[in-house]
């Protein structure tokens, strides 16, 4: 069973539907017991980093996530959920992240070519930088759907795929049992469903 962390951010309808479409059981929960009983945990997220971060710490979900990560449960962050996995974010100030993956989240503003629109919205191609089971069956150039204004940097070792938007931008990361996608797999058609399926098949619980 996949547990989708419910901490009051984002629209979880499509995530639930996409797990259903690949035949995986998924529940939306903020219950630590349910999270601990899940085979896989997905951390969603849309909105502002600081707000999401505070919600995780105040609700106690942060402690549960730490426990899950050290137990070896596969944890995947999506979009802002992925950004939260890093050491820190520079979104409107400096904010500490969960620190599961070394790296920092920086803004596109001032970093990429001025002619490019911010946010980066739309379908963009993936370039695999490492072989990883999360991207099994995915080919270079396969498009996925992005919506974001900040991106993860200084995390080269964990990057498994990038996308070109002015710079080679982090698109997917993996470090042990912690995974992340900057794009929305639940909005990325067949390619996205394949990635979710790979996630569900990823690893064994320790």
């Amino acid at each position, binding site marked *: 069973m996949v547990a989708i962390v419910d901490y009051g951010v984002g*629209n979880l*309808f*499509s995530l639930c*539907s*996409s797990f*259903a*479409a690949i035949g995986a059981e998924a529940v939306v929960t903020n219950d630590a017991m349910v999270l601990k009983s899940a085979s896989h945990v997905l951390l969603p997220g*849309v*909105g502002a980093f600081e707000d999401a971060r505070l919600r995780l710490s105040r609700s106690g979900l942060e402690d549960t996530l730490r426990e899950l990560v050290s137990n070896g449960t596969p944890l995947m962050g999506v979009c802002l959920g992925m950004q939260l996995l890093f050491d820190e974010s520079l979104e409107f100030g400096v904010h500490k992240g969960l620190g599961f993956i070394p790296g920092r989240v920086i803004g596109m503003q001032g970093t990429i070519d001025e002619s490019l*629109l*911010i*946010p*980066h*919205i*739309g*379908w*963009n*191609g993936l370039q695999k930088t490492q072989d990883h089971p999360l991207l099994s069956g995915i080919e270079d150039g396969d*498009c996925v*759907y992005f*919506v974001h204004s900040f991106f993860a940097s200084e995390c080269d070792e964990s990057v498994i795929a990038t996308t*070109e*938007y002015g710079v080679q931008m982090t698109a997917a990361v993996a470090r042990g049992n912690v995974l992340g996608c900057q794009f929305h797999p*639940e*909005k*990325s*058609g*067949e390619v*996205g*469903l394949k990635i979710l399926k790979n996630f569900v098949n990823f690893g064994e619980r320790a």
Partner: protein
Amino acid sequence: MITKRIIPCLDVRDGRVVKGVNFENLGDVASPVELAEFYTNAGADELVFYDITASAEGRGIFTGILRETARRVFIPLTVGGGINTLLDFERVLSAGADKVSINSGAIRDPSLARAASRRYGSQCVVLSVDVKRVNGVFRVFARGGRDDTGLEALSWISSQVQAGAGEVVVNSIDTDGVKGGFDLELLERVCDLVDVPVIASGGAGKSEDFVTLFSQVPKVSAGLAASIFHFGEVKISDLKDTLKQENIPVRIVK
């Protein structure tokens, strides 16, 4: 490289697609859910559902259809039509919409974009504008293009983007239905004005019109059309192939 998006728009009334759809081997497709699946498989990058229902009952049916579509189709869904308040946002977002398009509702209440973007994020708020030239000035029309609001279109768009609209659909009434191509002059002006994605609408009659659009106004992010897709005049898969041959980046669905 980011791809140009192709977006079919479906008008839905009382649970059916308004313009009947005739495809070879498909016959008349009037179920929005089936049509959404068909377009998705053909390579649509996003779908717009436009609710043209007037009754509360019809609105309920529409929400049900949206939910069913979002269970089956995994590309972004934008919903427009009858969006006047944050409650309307809530209703369609909780039924699976990813973005909400505001038009007459924003004209009636210009603070709607700000309130909605604060609550749901600007990526969720799409400003849709019907524009027509009146004495050489671009003016905003309301109620599906029937009423001249007197608003100057470029300053209206600019103010709404500043308020929080994250994308703009520019529908040219002057070129709409004529099938002679998109309104490149208007689109160029809007693209120069705002730094959010601009979606071109109104005037597409053939694949080449999209080629012209993306090569003449390269800042345009997407092209939207309804009837040419519904009546099979342009197949989305063929359109994508044509664009690719012209070196315009598009997502090809295998």
